[in-house]
């Protein structure tokens, strides 16, 4: 059996990533590419992943299910996949940025954490 | 006797419409290629001379009477009826500026035979009284006198005596049982008596019997040119009757284009029966003689010569290879014009144009096409095989001040005959 036909969308996508990285360096402009908005042949996402490779940073997030944040071999380009509690994929994107926003500690969460820490400190004596 | 009317003209159109015409009009895509093939257009640049445009009256008639859509439109009053005024306007296009040469028929990409249709359109034109007065006169003389130029038997007899004296040969008249019946055109009798002498010599050498018919010597047929089959039939039947009475095997058309068409192709159809004899053009007969070794010539023309194909003989008659074989028999410097054979350019005077004084000016103007061809070649002698072409060639060359002798092919062959006693 011959390999299945390709949409040919990988090459333009790689070009898009290249331009986005150039912009990031030049102006600090970040960008998100939604992989689910594009048609891909069954084999193509695998191929894309192989081309982009694995970079230095890899993170895992646990909020409303798992999320994986993987820097690609091209620093500044991140492969981000969100899963729901059922471990079904709900979103798959490539982000071009210094660090994905989702990794940043959020103001509201810090505040809540701070409250908890304060009450912990108030309730016990070490 | 009744005067021509539009009604008679339209009736004649209806008589002429047949499957070929219906298919021709159905196929025409108005591409305009016929204009580029017509010397009346190429030499004047006037688009009204486009061959298919000349057929507009017939096309409209066909459309209105013989197509579903045309009939519907006519019933709804949406179509323009054909009028006398219109036919009168088209007279110039159908008679003065068409020689029925059929060059347009050869280039038409959908294969339309436009010359065939123009010939048929002329039936309606004549029946409705829109034929040129000079052609009417010529037809009148043909029917009443026996020749369009008014040549009577005594004139021919005088020429025959002269020929007999020149050649020392007998010029036979009304010989029952002769193998060949020789026809002549008035032009040959009056302008080119050499032809008759050449015939006498050639047939003598070939050892073939021949005769003239005192009641049917004229080969030309004004009925064909003006487009009246009844007159054409009347004229052609004289030849047919004479040939059958004299029991000849073959009737020979002289060096005249439309005469050949009239007797060779039209006669049986006009008479409505097959003929009891064969009809050949003189060139075909000469070529027959050559092939059978009956034509012994000596000497070759030194001068550079070319051949003007008469349209009716070549493109409309299929006599194309014959003159070339004959020319190469007596010349070693025969060259072809750029367009020749079935693609030759007409001299501009055929199809009744030469008999039509109204067409004189344009006839000379379009001769420029032949002048251009001849200038390219720079020959010493121009040979042809049609008396009508020959007159136009001589007259045209004179007008364009070109000094170039024009010779009939039959005479040229006769010049080279080996003298036998």
């Amino acid at each position, binding site marked *: 059996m011959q390999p299945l036909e390709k949409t040919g969308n990988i090459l333009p996508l790689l070009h898009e990533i290249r331009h986005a990285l150039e912009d990031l360096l030049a102006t600090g402009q970040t960008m998100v590419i939604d992989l689910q908005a594009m048609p891909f042949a069954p084999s193509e996402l695998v191929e894309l992943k192989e081309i982009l490779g694995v970079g230095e940073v890899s993170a895992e997030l646990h909020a409303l299910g798992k999320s994986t944040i993987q820097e690609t071999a091209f620093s500044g380009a991140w492969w981000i996949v969100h899963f729901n509690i059922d471990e079904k994929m709900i979103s798959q994107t490539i982000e071009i940025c210094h660090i994905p926003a989702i990794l940043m500690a959020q103001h509201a969460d810090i505040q809540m954490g701070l409250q908890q820490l304060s009450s912990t400190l108030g309730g016990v004596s070490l | 006797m009744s005067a021509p009317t539009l009604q008679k003209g339209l009736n004649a159109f209806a008589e002429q*419409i*047949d*499957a*070929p015409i*219906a*298919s*021709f009009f*159905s*196929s*025409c*895509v*108005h591409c*305009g*290629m016929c*204009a*580029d093939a017509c010397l009346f*257009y*190429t030499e004047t*640049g006037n*688009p*009204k001379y*486009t061959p*298919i*445009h000349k057929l507009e009256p017939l096309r409209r008639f066909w459309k209105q009477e*013989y*197509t*579903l859509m045309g009939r519907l439109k006519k019933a709804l009053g949406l179509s323009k009826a054909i009028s006398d005024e219109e036919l009168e306007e088209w007279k110039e296009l159908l008679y003065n500026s068409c020689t029925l040469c059929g060059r347009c*028929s*050869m*280039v*038409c*990409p*959908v*294969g*339309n*035979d436009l010359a*065939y249709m123009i010939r048929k359109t002329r039936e309606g034109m004549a029946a409705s009284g829109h034929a040129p007065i000079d052609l009417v006169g010529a037809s009148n003389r043909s029917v009443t006198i026996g020749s369009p130029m008014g040549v009577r038997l005594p004139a021919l007899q005088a020429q025959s005596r002269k020929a007999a004296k020149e050649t020392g040969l007998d010029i036979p008249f009304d010989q029952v049982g002769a193998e060949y019946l020789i026809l002549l055109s008035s032009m040959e009798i009056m302008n080119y008596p050499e032809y008759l002498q050449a015939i006498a010599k050639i047939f003598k050498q070939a050892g073939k019997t021949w005769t003239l018919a005192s009641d049917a010597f004229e080969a030309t047929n004004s009925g064909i040119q003006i487009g009246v089959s009844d007159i054409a039939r009347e004229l052609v039947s004289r030849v047919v009757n004479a040939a059958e009475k004299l029991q000849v095997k073959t009737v020979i058309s002289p060096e005249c284009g439309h005469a050949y068409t009239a007797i*060779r*192709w*039209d*006669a*049986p*159809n006009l*008479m*409505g*029966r097959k*003929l009891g004899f*064969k*009809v050949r053009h003189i060139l075909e007969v000469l070529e027959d003689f050559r092939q059978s070794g009956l034509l012994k010539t000596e000497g070759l023309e030194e001068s550079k010569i070319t051949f003007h194909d008469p349209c009716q003989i*070549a*493109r*409309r*008659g*299929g*006599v*194309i290879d014959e003159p070339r074989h004959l020319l190469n028999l007596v010349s070693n410097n025969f060259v072809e014009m*750029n*367009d020749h054979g*079935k*693609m030759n350019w007409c001299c501009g005077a055929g199809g009744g144009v030469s008999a039509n004084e109204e067409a004189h000016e344009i006839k000379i103007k379009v001769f420029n096409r032949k002048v251009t061809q001849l200038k390219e070649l720079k020959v010493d002698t121009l040979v042809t095989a049609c008396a009508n072409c020959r007159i136009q060639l001589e007259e045209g060359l004179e007008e364009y001040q070109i000094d170039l002798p024009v010779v009939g092919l039959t005479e040229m062959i006769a010049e080279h005959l080996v003298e036998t006693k």
Partner: protein
Amino acid sequence: MNSATFLIWVRETGFLIASSIFIIGLTIRFFEIFMLGRKKDLSEPKGCAMRGGFKTIFTRFLPQDSNTFQRSYFIIIAGYVFHIGLLVALFLLVPHIELIRAALGFGWVGLPTPVVDFLTVLSLISMLALLWHRLTNPVLKMISDAGDYTAWILTFLPLLTGYLAYHHLFFDYTWLLAFHILSAELLMIMLPFTKLMHTFTIFVSRFYGGAISGHKGVQV
């Protein structure tokens, strides 16, 4: 009416109407022509009318000689490119072959779409050039009538809408496809009653013309 129901209409009712008129019209036209008949030529033949007729059907695809070509090169080249493009698009595009297969029960192999697309573009350009020629050349200006322009539009529209539909240009594809089919149906309806009839009668007229020459022994 929305595009989807319009598409169904042209594929169903529209096609039924168009194909009926097309077939009825064609048949009538052929009866009109052939039933007129022609007189038997009683003159002794010099050549063969039949051979001349059938030969001319093919030989007249090309100009008689190089001089004729030089004199009319524009109309010949543009005409050729236009016809080739049109015929390739009509008979070698797979969706069209499927239509033929559905209607007649047989089909053949098609060409890759980019090839058809390229020839369609050439065809469209040629048609525009031919129109310009018709509007400016003195001969064509004189001999052209409403029928010539109608025929041009009827032929141009299916090519154009087909091209637009294939490239999804300007309009929603469903509308374009429906208009493309509709334009082809208009062409079918009008073909028997316009000069487009030459599509079929060209073989008849070439035969007759060639037979007249062939009978007289003129090489065709």
